[in-house]
């Protein structure tokens, strides 16, 4: 089924491709695809479609072009020579995306983010003022992002020290970075870990001393299917955990793929969630013990209890308590 959104994108692509090649004469289909975030096959298909279009069906009324993979030249654009104006929704969506980018200095040039947003706001006038121009903040150290970006751009491996806090292991790593993403103001990279020979996700606040290697980066990009809505692969997990959460604290699970179940007699709600990281769940239960308890798996509940007891043993407590 063709959704309204796909149709919108198809239409905008087709109506702007002739102006695009007019403005970039001789550009190859590959370059255009990279610039527009499309596959070369899509650009080729779009041009072929435009080749059969025009204001009429006479020979003088059709688009004409000299198009091959290496170079595209528009011979007759049939009047379609200007890019379309931005709609309110497009401009606002871009401004919101720029607001996000403002928080990742080092990955991009923050001055350019701010000036690009200002120019967009200028041409849109009052239409997009509802998108507040927030002051950006540094979610991650600029120097770290700078090194990560450089490793991606130069296609060399990233060397760093990684502290796997949940396991307490600190190790040097050699990574081929595939992608950088943020989730809830936390930064992560997905990278091929050359010591473990597989793709893993790393939290930026646990990564230190990033530096560039001279080894070429060799991410097995084709092996991973990144789902932006499920970056941690929750959906691929076969194990489940059953928790009970106090009802008014259910917002804690807002960003987790939970299924809400029955309510218990004492005002807790049962939830199930995919179990991808046992250490994470133990820490979550310890930290929210006033409003969360683990029901299943039993062995995790036991570990939470044991960790709490050994933590308590470190405090100087009167014997009778």
């Amino acid at each position, binding site marked *: 089924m063709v959704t309204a959104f796909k149709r919108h994108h198809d239409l905008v692509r087709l109506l702007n491709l002739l102006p695009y090649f007019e403005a970039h004469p001789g550009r190859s289909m590959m370059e255009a695809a990279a610039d527009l975030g499309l596959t070369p096959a899509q650009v080729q298909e779009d041009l072929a479609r435009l080749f059969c279009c025009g204001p009429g069906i006479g020979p003088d009324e059709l688009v004409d072009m000299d198009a091959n993979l290496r170079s595209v030249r528009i011979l007759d654009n049939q009047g379609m020579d200007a890019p379309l104006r931005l709609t309110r929704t497009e401009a606002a*969506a871009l401004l919101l995306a720029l607001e996000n980018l403002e928080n990742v200095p080092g990955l991009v040039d923050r001055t350019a983010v701010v000036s690009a947003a200002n120019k967009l706001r*200028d041409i849109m006038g009052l239409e997009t003022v509802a998108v507040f121009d927030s002051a950006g903040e540094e979610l991650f150290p600029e120097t770290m992002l700078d090194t990560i970006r450089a490793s991606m751009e130069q296609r060399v491996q990233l060397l760093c020290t990684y502290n796997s806090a949940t396991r307490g292991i600190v190790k040097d790593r050699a990574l081929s970075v595939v992608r950088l993403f943020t989730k809830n103001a936390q930064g992560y990279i997905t990278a091929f870990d050359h010591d473990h020979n597989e793709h893993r996700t790393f939290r930026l606040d646990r990564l230190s001393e990033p530096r560039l290697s001279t080894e070429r980066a060799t991410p097995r990009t084709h092996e991973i299917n990144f789902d932006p809505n499920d970056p941690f692969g929750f959906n691929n997990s076969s194990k489940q955990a059953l928790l009970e959460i106090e*009802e008014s604290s259910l917002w804690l699970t807002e960003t987790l793929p939970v299924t809400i179940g029955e309510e218990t007699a004492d005002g807790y709600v049962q939830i199930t969630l995919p179990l991808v990281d046992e250490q994470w769940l133990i820490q979550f239960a310890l930290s929210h013990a006033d409003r969360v308890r683990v029901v299943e798996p039993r062995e995790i509940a036991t570990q939470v209890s044991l960790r709490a007891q050994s933590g308590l043993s470190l*405090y100087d407590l009167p014997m009778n308590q």
Partner: protein
Amino acid sequence: MASELPRDVTIERLVNLTFAFLNLKRVGRSYLTLDWVVRNIEGYKYNAKGQERSQRTLEKLFERDRRTLSFAGVPIETVVMDNTVGYRLSDDDYRLPEVSFTPEEATVLALAGQMGQGDELATFTRSGWTKIAASGINRDVSITPQFTTVNDFATLSASTLDTILQAHNNHTRLSFMYQPHPAAEAVERWMDPWGLVSQRDRLYLVGHDLDRDEVRTFRITRISEVEPLDMDDETVASYGPFHKADPSVNLQELVDAQLRRGRLLVNATVRAIDPQRCAELIDGAVESNGDVYELVDVDKDWLVRTACAYAPHAVVLGPDDVVSAVVAQLRLAAKENS
């Protein structure tokens, strides 16, 4: 050229219609009529089964195409001339205004256009970038880093965004359903919207809450069914004229203030028994003596919870109220999970 291109009748009809409007002047016409469109543009007269469409169906089809085009940024206006209804391109609104972006700005716009946040908004960032790219800016196409955000933007639908933008501009009251947490019953709230604020990877709707008669901020993930209210309706009007934001007010500071409400900042001393295994707790703290760290101005609730999360690798040494809170929390953890 590819010879076996799958036909897409709708898209070709829409593109050809745009060409026809763009060429009005060239053919010496000032407007097009529906009749002309049906006679000259393939895809109108007959339906997919090859049957001739009725006049009523044609009118509806043309209206739908007009809306689709307008949504893409091709505004078609209605004119009445010589007792005939005609249509033409609203020329001033068709072209992207003259704007020049530097190569550095082009790079960030390309990234903004392609970072794919949410399924719906991604369509619009992408199409927005396509238009800007078509204006002729040049950038180094080899450097678009792979970057994605997984945050509140994913839950914001294009139509909700548009409703909020429009209500803000036209000073229209909004109604929406607010759900403080996933199991709570959603309640209807009315608001005079002031804006959307992005703060620490989260997105908030800020405005004047009519029932509370106060400024309120709502995280976008917790609201749904955002709809404009009829300002002429008696109940809607009873709240008085639209409450405008004071132009000097900084919406981001309002969000900050609401988030900070109920927070208590403390200074604390923590012993890190295994600093590697409680790195989050002592991040930013000052090492005072061996394994002892001083934490300054930290949220008390965060401190208690984080100290518990990393037990037994860290111990809070003081102040006493934090120590008691950690001990109480650990006792609960021991009891509730056994």
